[in-house]
């Protein structure tokens, strides 16, 4: 570990902290329908969209209406994307002449982009036409991100409102987040990426002569525009198979920094928006701090782990001060790779700039734990906030009793219904992550997709279901999952991981909004201080840790001890 490495991490943190408040304030105004500096440009567009779609911007929905709107929108989006992939060969903007995507892969990919997962059982440059990339995948990159944020806003409204029946209008929230937040930031980011050398073209692939005189086809496409929303919307689906490790997707250290900042930007700003909406920015900063602490622990462990050298290589005479450079890009080095891996799994991005499978065992465990906790460390745009708040509800429910009052969070009593919905949402992650992994391992066919042996092979399978259920989409690599069984089960995993959290979350929003708000007094548990931060972090680590301890022990933990005893898998 080096001083420069830590300074990189510190710089990154400073930028995220600096963005949080102004962007949070801006988003608060956008969702309240207030005038912003972008209103002159997008106001007419917004009204035009409502007029065309027949949406009454003033009419709000209850939680069921909101959920139905979201589900219908997802279903239509799924069908459109699936169809587009199946018929891409007959459509224009297909410079590389890609053929139709097979049904199971098209289904898996459609679900993947719809749920903000962007798990990719394909290589972009060898499977998808430019039309699918732009009109299919990129559109869902915007829409899944916007839907996630909309759910979070509706969830926060549940806390902010009192004795209310409505939690907002899904169509209005969706439109506003896309127009006022996602599009403007993406335009700026795209220009910056192009400036840094990222391709942005609809032209054909280029043939180049290599130094040895061989001919190599260089894949190109509208990369920069895709890349912006991939990061900002915590989607993570790469244009190319190598994702952000590819020199066209992440050419320089600067683009790497921008990409990492973009992943956390909206998640961080949402904590501030949350604070503002519930009437106290301190509440938002408490959430921010808890998330920040969990991030720092993760990045610290991962950076430390990767700064160690693999003892097997040291035994062969390698200089241990190099650390573990296997699977990392030289232009990023260890700190930026460790940070990227932590950021991308804290949030539900899933873009990678290094091979997670090549991390040392404990290093590879950090992304896994981040995802097992439900990606609530800033998290997927929107989903991170409501996922975190679900844990906050559990923490407040258990420990809040210890102040001698029935538990309340932000003035809302937490009662049987909220606990039931919270447990449903929290339960679905281990169900999918552990249940599907166990199933895949005992069935006769699926284990064939695993390339490594022993605990490392186990980690490959576990990582796949953990990544999909948490809607991350990053892969441990090494798993050849483009088979009907894996495509199907991973698709189901993504859907459960998304919708079985969203629907209980919206139900909680509905019942919270209907409650009265108890004014705080010196007898209420303060949820904006260090005590609350420590408590929530503790509950998240203990709940997550207890659930996944056996699995982790059989994967990375045993691998770690084996490695130091001289056994590699």
């Amino acid at each position, binding site marked *: 570990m080096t001083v420069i490495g830590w300074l990189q991490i510190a710089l990154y943190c400073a930028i995220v902290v600096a963005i949080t408040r102004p962007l949070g304030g801006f988003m608060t105004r956008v969702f309240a329908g207030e005038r912003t500096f972008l209103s002159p440009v997008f106001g007419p567009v917004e009204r035009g969209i409502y007029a065309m779609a027949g949406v009454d911007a003033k009419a709000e929905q209850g939680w069921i209406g909101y959920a139905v709107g979201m589900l219908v929108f997802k279903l239509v989006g799924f069908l459109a994307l699936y169809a587009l992939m199946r018929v891409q060969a007959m459509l224009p903007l297909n410079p590389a002449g890609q053929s139709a995507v097979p049904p199971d892969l098209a289904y898996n990919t459609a679900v993947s982009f719809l749920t903000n997962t962007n798990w990719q059982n394909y290589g972009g440059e060898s499977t998808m036409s430019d039309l699918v990339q732009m009109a299919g995948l990129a559109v869902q990159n915007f829409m899944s991100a916007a839907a996630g944020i909309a759910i979070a806003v509706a969830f926060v409204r549940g806390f902010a409102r009192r004795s209310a029946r409505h939690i907002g209008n899904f169509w209005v929230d969706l439109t506003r987040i896309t127009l006022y937040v996602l599009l403007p930031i993406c335009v700026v980011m795209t220009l910056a990426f192009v400036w840094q050398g990222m391709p942005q073209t609809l032209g054909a692939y280029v043939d180049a002569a290599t130094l040895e005189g061989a001919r190599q086809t260089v894949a190109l496409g509208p990369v920069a525009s895709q890349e912006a929303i991939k990061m900002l919307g915590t989607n993570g689906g790469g244009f190319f198979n190598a994702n952000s490790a590819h020199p066209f997707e992440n050419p320089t250290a600067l683009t790497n920094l921008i990409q990492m900042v973009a992943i956390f930007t909206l998640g961080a700003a949402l904590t501030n928006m949350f604070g503002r909406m519930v009437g106290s920015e301190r509440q938002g900063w408490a959430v921010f701090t808890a998330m920040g602490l969990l991030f720092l622990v993760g990045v610290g462990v991962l950076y430390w782990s990767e700064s160690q050298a693999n003892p097997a290589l040291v035994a062969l005479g390698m200089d241990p001060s190099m650390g573990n450079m296997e699977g990392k890009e030289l232009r990023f080095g260890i700190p930026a790779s460790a940070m990227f891996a932590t950021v991308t799994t804290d949030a539900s991005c899933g873009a990678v700039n290094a091979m997670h499978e090549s991390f040392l065992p404990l290093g590879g465990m950090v992304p896994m734990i981040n995802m097992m906790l439900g990606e609530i460390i800033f998290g997927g745009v929107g989903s991170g906030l409501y996922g975190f708040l679900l844990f906050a509800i559990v923490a407040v429910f258990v*420990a809040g009793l210890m102040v001698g009052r029935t538990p309340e969070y932000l003035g809302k009593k937490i*009662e049987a219904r909220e*606990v039931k919905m919270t447990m449903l949402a929290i339960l679905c992650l281990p169900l999918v992550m552990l249940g599907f992994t*166990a199933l895949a391992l005992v069935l006769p066919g699926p284990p064939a997709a695993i390339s490594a042996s022993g605990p490392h092979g186990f980690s490959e399978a576990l990582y796949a279901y953990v990544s999909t259920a948490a809607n991350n989409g990053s892969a441990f690599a090494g798993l050849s999952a483009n088979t009907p069984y894996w495509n199907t089960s991973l698709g189901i995993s993504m859907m459960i991981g998304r919708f079985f959290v969203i629907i209980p979350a919206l139900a909680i929003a509905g019942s919270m909004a209907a409650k009265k708000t108890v004014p705080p007094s*010196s007898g209420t548990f303060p949820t904006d201080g260090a*005590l609350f931060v420590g408590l929530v972090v503790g509950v998240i680590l203990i709940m997550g840790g207890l659930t996944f301890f056996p*699995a982790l022990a059989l994967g990375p933990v045993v691998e770690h*001890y084996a490695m130091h005893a001289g056994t590699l898998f």
Partner: protein
Amino acid sequence: MSDTTLPRLRATTTMLDTAILWPAIGQAFRKLDPRMLWHNPVMFVVEIVSVLTTILFLRDLATGGTHLGFALQINIWLWFTVLFANFAEAVAEGRGKAQAASLRRAKTETMAHRLRADGGTESIPATSLRQGDIVLVAAGEIIPSDGEVIEGVASVNEAAITGESAPVIREAGGDRSAVTGGTQVMSDIIKVRITAAPGSTFLDRMIALVEGAARQKTPNEIALNILLAGMTLIFVLAVATIPSFATYAGGSLTVLVLVALFVTLIPTTIGALLSAIGIAGMDRLVRFNVLAMSGRAVEAAGDVDTLLLDKTGTITLGNRQATAFLPVAGVDARELADAAQLSSLSDETPEGRSIVVLAKELYALRGREMAHLGAHFVAFSAQTRMSGVDLDGRQIRKGAVDSVLAHVLATSANERPVAEAVVRELRAIAERIATSGGTPLAVADGHRLLGIIHLKDIIKGGIKERFSELRRMGIRTVMITGDNPMTAAAIAAEAGVDDFLAQATPEAKLGLIRQEQGQGKLVAMCGDGTNDAPALAQADVGVAMNTGTMAAREAGNMVDLDSDPTKLIEIVEIGKQLLMTRGALTTFSIANDVAKYFAIIPAMFLAFYPQLSALNIMYLSTPQSAILSAIIFNALIIVALIPLALKGVAYRPIGAASLLRRNLLVYGVGGLAAPFVGIKVIDMLVTALGLA
């Protein structure tokens, strides 16, 4: 039945009372019945897996399996886990049962003298009385059922209900008309209209409540049960997937070891003690001579944001006291004191007595015997609002300033009119006293206005500290009084309440409660009169005084048998204590799991991944002893925590943040650390005894 042998409800019963312990052990086995146990999801699950492992053990026993001794021990401790949970509940219930037994003795078979339509009476068993029947109860007889006195007045010994042997007066009309079945008339004869249906009398309900028969899970308890069930499901997933992972790793695991891991992980500690905590909370109230009609009310008490307290009896001593004699110009203070004392000699009200005492203290005027002086005492009446004495042709009067003035001006008008200046001065003094929160009483001797007696409300000692304590707990106190706003404000300031409601009418009281509730707050109040009933019903915690009317007792959700309105404060503390105990043990239970993982996981996987012995940070001697120690600790911790569950976590009014920090440290951090020590110690014992 002799009333002197009746135990008071709050009779002390300790946990180590053998009268409770022995039956509780029997109960613990009886509660293994799955029909009873399934109300407790966590322990029900433990029972199911215990049955499963027992069957497997018997199979192995028959077929000659290996490690039978180890399997037997695990089985025994699994069953102990369930039994300990049942035992905890039985002990908690046992304390109530002992009290119920003493109440039952009051419910002896009595005969009632029912009034027939023709005016005569007939003797029928009390149990066949219907609502609306009218019975006669004479001195020495037991009142057959709950009812209302419609004729007569009697002193009644209510020791059977309240434990208080001093008789109380019950009379027709007004707020003291309710009588309770099982109590005894000591003097006179009363006519009572029965208001309770057979089997649902106050005594019946009390017995059911203290016995726990009528106990239903409270809202927070239900929510907590859902959380515990959810966590149990999470651990089902965590444990049930292990065999697949192990098989992939080339190993295999026995069902017994998986069950041991599962049972130690699920929140058995809080699952076992949850209902005991609830029963003990109700029981603490009962021993405080307060009956909560539902557990919901106890929980709500912990949540109370606003306390409505009646001024009289709660904040101030029941009565005002004279503190000064303030004569008008030209009158000697001694003369005023003398006249005031004379007018009060036969005034048996506390105010009157305090005037006599004050005159003696200040001017050494001794009380005189009225009979000696040949005086004629004029009693206070609501019309005249004055009292006094006629003596040697003097007419001394004291009373409300307006009334005395009107009296003097009316009688003196024809003779010597009272000087305008004297009237003005008298009014000025009265005004000054009223502003300071006191009550002025004017004194006149014939046509002469002498001056004013300053009566003052005496704030109870320590009540101000109590209110600041409540403020630290986040509870707002509102004083309810019939006084005018000026007086009320002065007393409120002196007592340190946060707010007051002056000239309170039942409607205003109800309005205030609704307004507070509209802001999302929970309100507690106590009351006794029939006109309190709507407010008692509206309040989240309504404590009815046992001396109150039937209507008030029906409307409230708690009854205070001692009829002490100050208890509202303790009731809130008991509610908070109940919730805190629940939270503390839940936190402890969950925090315990970390150590159990470190005990069992390395032991479990050691056969195929010996590298994991690095996780054996407690250095437990063998895999068997590790697993056995974890499950023994898991069972014993239940027993160890029974006293805490019954006694409750101590509540301190130090504000939520400090309270939480303290409890998190004790039960959260303590819960993390305790099992590391406990399991290690048990492991050493198990190894030393050669058990595994």
